[in-house]
Structure formats: structure tokens, C-alpha cells
């Protein structure tokens, strides 16, 4: 009995109380800062080394939907034209918004990239139930999605939860590069969610195929037919990135 009390005292309240003020350790690689002035435009060091082809030159730009945030480009650029800031608010409602151009500032990004829609706010603003489907996910994104519900991030306090069945859900959160072998199950799960429904892609693999882009064993046709409401980049995305994206999509912060 006393041990249990001691444990409760030790456990304290580890929840992050105010997400708007939460910050991640500066070592974290989040929103990329591109400096066109120091990029000579001719040296391909950064784009050559990028494992997923996320970086392009002339003009210098970085696609966060492909980026796995390994930091190899930042290490390879002799002029430090590419740096990663610890800013984690990097979700977007449009795929094209994930392409970061030179001079774009981390603090402006979330306001521009996520456009909260009125009907999503009205329908799901107070309660959003999601079904997660891993379609080739390596368990990285899955663990971070699960972490959103733990005592640190406590997603449940915002009325957002993961359900055990797509029948109980308002939408899907998809992770992984969409393997061919998961294709029928993914389509079944999507059909099982009643309208109106939303689709969220979490992680570089779901958004672009990530390091698996172009593999023969994928079938990404689902994404050609299905509208996507939120893109959450990362490899894997940090729980704060996921929560920030969801809350902005719902119009709860912004």
C-alpha cells in the first residue's frame, strides 16, 4: 500500500500541460532552415547525399514529405545553407505545402500550412475518433502515434482517441509505404469508416514512400483515389508534431 503511494508521488504529473508552449530538445531535427544566400547553387553535395531525393537545387528547396530528417544534407553542405531547427509544428493540409523554400521561417509555417476547415471543426472539433492502419510501417510511426495517448502527451484530453475498429472511427491514420499485401485490407478499412471521414498520412513512408519509394512491393493506388486531409511529416513524426497537426486541423489551435 505504502509502496503504491510512494509510486504515485514519484510518478507525479508528467503531462505536458500547455502544448502551445511545449518545446523539444534543441538536438531534434525539425523544420529545415534553408539559406539561399549561402547556397552556391552549383555544388550538389546536399542533394547527392539525400537518401530520399527530398532536396532540390535551383532554387534550393526541401520536401518534408520525402525527408527522413537524417541531417545528412546539413552535415554535407560546406556553407551550412541547410540546417534543421527543433521546430516541430510541421504538419500541412496540402501536399505541396510540405515543400520548404529558402528563407521560409519555422514560426510562420504552421499558420500557413494548415488550413482548418469549418466542417471539420464543426463535426470533429470536440471528438475525433481515429483508426490507425499500418501498411508497411516499421513500428516507428506506430510507436509515436501510440505515445500521443500516453501520460506525457495525453491526447484523450482533447477528445481525440484511437479506436479498435474502423466502424467506430471518423477517419484513418495511415503509416508505412503502403505495401501491396496490405492494399486490400487498407481499402476495406477505409470503406468501413462511415461518411463523413478524414484521412491522415503520418510519416515519410506514408506521404511519399520514404526510403521504400519505388519498391516493387508497394501499391500506392489508394492514395490516387482518396483525398488526404492532413500530412504529418517525420521519420517518425514526434508526438508533438502529430498533436499539433491534429489540433490545428480541428481548428482547436491556430
Amino acid at each position: 500500500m505504502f509502496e503504491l503511494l510512494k509510486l504515485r508521488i514519484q510518478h507525479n504529473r508528467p503531462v505536458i500541460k500547455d502544448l502551445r508552449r511545449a518545446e523539444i530538445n534543441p538536438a531534434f531535427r525539425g523544420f529545415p532552415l534553408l539559406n539561399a544566400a549561402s547556397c552556391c547553387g552549383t555544388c550538389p553535395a546536399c542533394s547527392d547525399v539525400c537518401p530520399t531525393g527530398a532536396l532540390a537545387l535551383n532554387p534550393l528547396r526541401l520536401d518534408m514529405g520525402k525527408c527522413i530528417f537524417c541531417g545528412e544534407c546539413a552535415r554535407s553542405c560546406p556553407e551550412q545553407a541547410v540546417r534543421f531547427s527543433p521546430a516541430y509544428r510541421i504538419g500541412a493540409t496540402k501536399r505541396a505545402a510540405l515543400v520548404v523554400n529558402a528563407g521560409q521561417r519555422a514560426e510562420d509555417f504552421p499558420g500557413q500550412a494548415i488550413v482548418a476547415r469549418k466542417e471539420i471543426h464543426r463535426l470533429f472539433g470536440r471528438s475525433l475518433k481515429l483508426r490507425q492502419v499500418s501498411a508497411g510501417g516499421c513500428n516507428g510511426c506506430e510507436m509515436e502515434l501510440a505515445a500521443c495517448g500516453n501520460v506525457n502527451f495525453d491526447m484523450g484530453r482533447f477528445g481525440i482517441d484511437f479506436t479498435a475498429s474502423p466502424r467506430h472511427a471518423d477517419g484513418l491514420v495511415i503509416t508505412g509505404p503502403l505495401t501491396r499485401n496490405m492494399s486490400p485490407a487498407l481499402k476495406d478499412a477505409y470503406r468501413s469508416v462511415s461518411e463523413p471521414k478524414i484521412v491522415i498520412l503520418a510519416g515519410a513512408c506514408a506521404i511519399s514512400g520514404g526510403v521504400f519509394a519505388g519498391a516493387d512491393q508497394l501499391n500506392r493506388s489508394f492514395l490516387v483515389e482518396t483525398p488526404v486531409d492532413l500530412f504529418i511529416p517525420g521519420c517518425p513524426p514526434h508526438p508533438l508534431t502529430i498533436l499539433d497537426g491534429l489540433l490545428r486541423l480541428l481548428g482547436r489551435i491556430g
Partner: protein
Amino acid sequence: MNWAEIKNLQAVRITDIPCLPIDRLREETLTGLAAGRRVVQFFGHRTAGKVVLYVVLADDEYSHLYVASSVFAKETSYPAFTPAAPGLHLFEREFYEQFGIKPAGHPWLKPLRKGIAGSAAADETLYPFFHMEGEEVHEVGVGPIHAGIIEPGHFRFSCHGEGVYHLEIQHGFQHRGVEELFLRRRESPVFLLRLAESIAGDSVIGHVGAFARALEALSGVNISRQAMIIRTIASELERVAVHLGDLAALAADVAYLTGNAVFGALRTKVINTTLAICGSRFGRGLVVPGGVNFDIPPSLREDIRATMDRLEDETDLAAEVLFASASVLSRFEKTGIVTEDTARRIGMVGPAARASGFAVDVRADHPYGGFSYFPVHKMTLHSGDVFARAYIRHVEIKQSLRMITEQLSALNGGELNKNCPAPAAGMLLVSLAEGWRGEIAHAVITDGEGKLQRYKIKDPSFHNWFALALAVRGNGISDFPVCNKSFNLSYCGTDL
């Protein structure tokens, strides 16, 4: 037996590997297994129009590995090893699927990764499940999409009432073609590094470490002591983090929410420590062939030391409460038993094997990297039930926390990263590592120019799925979640 004798991370010239007739390879493999050796790899390689089968056995007592091969020129079948060596059943299914050479007499020759969906006839007949017949017998199918936020796979239970007679596990849903990508993108070591990190996202350091050490050994590079210790610290942080997460999940599965909350919060502290070192909560970006990308500067060392010290006390208290709870113990004890004999026969690995009393631990048996300098004592328990698989995690967390603290003191600066020249040509190398799940085995074959010609990956789950299937036999179906979580196996590591 004149097999080539090597050690973990010791390359052997392909031409020095004895090539035996398949009957003799089979016989000698079985003799080796009977003498207590274990199969660490069993894979095919297509070269010059022929298929070569390589078998790698481990002698844990003497830290030796033994390699032999057999060539299939036109033969389309061979007598299966599985009937006499059940632990090989997935290996042989994989070999058949990849090369079409049939292990005749294999009792369970079903698809492993292919033929599930998207093929010409995407129906269940491609995967013939076992059926049990009788009055009131029924089947329960679960998956591929599961109730929690986890990877996909299909479980088929044959039940009578609540009791499980048999569990069949269908894999393949996660198949991404990792081994093919290793060859297709072999010119880009940076890409391969990131690919290795994504073999199983919960064992980033385990797999990427095995990959990096394989390349270093083939290039003849000795990384600095500093880099080696940083890798070792990262690998133990990974072990502690997942073990804590598993204890949290096990507590949740028996509705013990205090345990779930407390262990979950402790896990966060560990993965945030990894983040402070390398910018990723899972250690991505840390390891490179030739060393590491990030140092642990003195101020961070002190922070980590303080965190680890606190964690040990906090974990002790949390474990004391968890393992003293009657409601938890009544669900954990005598549930999902795997005996030591079974563990040996099916070649189990990792903490699950050690919880059954089968003392295998690559860190001690085939030391590599920092473990050559900081010997690891193998921890074992004997009941082989969910309790043992849970409690051994607590024991290993303590062990790893101390190891981290000890290794932090050994950091003294030094070079982080060395250049890795091209790998040696015409070699085979086996890189073993003890991931938190158990033995990771990467086998590399280089061609005449030192380029990767075959990259074979084995996640520890490949051995242990069979153990899960056997563990639930005779248990109530409602005990499946807690049994499953006590193993916590990787779907993508198996499906590749």
C-alpha cells in the same frame, strides 16, 4: 565436419566455404544441432545461374560460427530439414519462396511473404490454414489490421470454447522488399544506412549497428573506442526503452493502469535521452559505417548519468508494485508457458529464450563492439511463462542501466568517424548483434569487385513467432494479448 570456422564479424572467402552435397549438408546440420549448435542463418543466393544454399551454425560456448554450402544446379527439390529441425520451418519456407527449390516433406510449406494479396488470385486458397474439426470447434480470425496501434499480421485461432488448440500466424502483409533494395541501391551507403534503420523501427540501433559493423569488418576498419562506446550506450538505451514500454503494455493488457502509466512515463525519459544524443527518439542518424555522427559531450554525460541513476530507483519501485500485485500475477503466472526444451528445439533467441532458461545472448556468446570490453552476464529465468518474460525485462533494464553508467565513465573523447574504404571482394560475412528482442543476424556476400551481391537479414522475430504460437496452446483465447505482448515480435522485421 569440415565447415569453415569463423567468428562473428570475421569475413571468409567464398571459395574457402566447403560445398557439400545437400544430403550431407542436411545430415551435418542436424548433427550440429543435436550437439547444441544453433542455426543463425539459412539462406540462398543465386549466382551464375545456380542457387547456393548457405547454412551458418553457432557454437555459443566457443564463440565460433560454422559455414557450409550446397549448390543446386538443376535440382528442384531436396529433403526438408524441418521435420527433424522444427526451428528451420520459416527459413525453408523463405528459401522455397525466393528460389523455387522445394524442401520435400516440409510439413508447412505455405507462403511467407508473397501470394497474400495483389497477386493474380488474391484469395485465401493461396494460404491454406489448418482446420480443426469436431463438435463445437470454431475458428477465430484476427487481422491483418489489429485493434491497437500496431503492425499488421493475421492470426487464426482454432478453439474449443475458450481454449486455444492451435494458433496459426500468417505473415507477409508488411513485405516491403528490403533485401532487394539493399542490392538495388548498393552504390549509396548513405541510403543503405537509412534503409537498415527502417528494417524494424523499434530496433534501429540493433539493425543499423549490425549493418555498420558488417561494412566496417569487410573494409578492415577499426572504429575508435569512443564511437564504439557511444554505439553501445545507444544500444542499451534502446533495450531499456523497449523493455519499459513492454512492461507498460503488459500492464495495460491486464488492465493494471497504474503500471501502464508509470512505465510509459519512464520509457519517455529514456527515449528523450536518446533524442538528446542524436536528435531522434529512436537513435536514427546516430550510427554510420566508420563510427557515429554524434558525440556525448561531458555535460550531457552528467545529465544522462543522473537520469539513469534516478531511473534505476524509479524502475525498481514501479516493478516492486507491479510484481507484487495479485491481480497482475494471477494473469502473468503459468500463462503461455514455453519450456526450455521447446526453446532449444525451435531455436528461440533473446529475452524470451532466456526467460525459459535457454541462456543465449549474442553480447556474451559472440561479443562485438563495446561488449568485447564490457562483458555481459547472461540473465536467465526458468518458468518460461508471461511472468518470466515480463520479469526478465525488469532484470535486463537494471543490468543495462548499470552498463550505460559504466560506459559513460569510459568516454574520454576521441575520433568519432573514420572513412570506410570499399569492402573486400568475394567474401561472406556474418554480423550478429543482440537487439532487445534477441539475435539479429545479417549475412553479406560481396562480388569480385567488393560490391554487395547478397544482403540477408534475419530479425530475432523470425525464430520467435513459432514460440508465440506454441505458447498460447492450451491457454484461454483471452490470454492471447498478454502472451503476444510478452514476446512483442516484429512483423516488418519478419516480412522485410
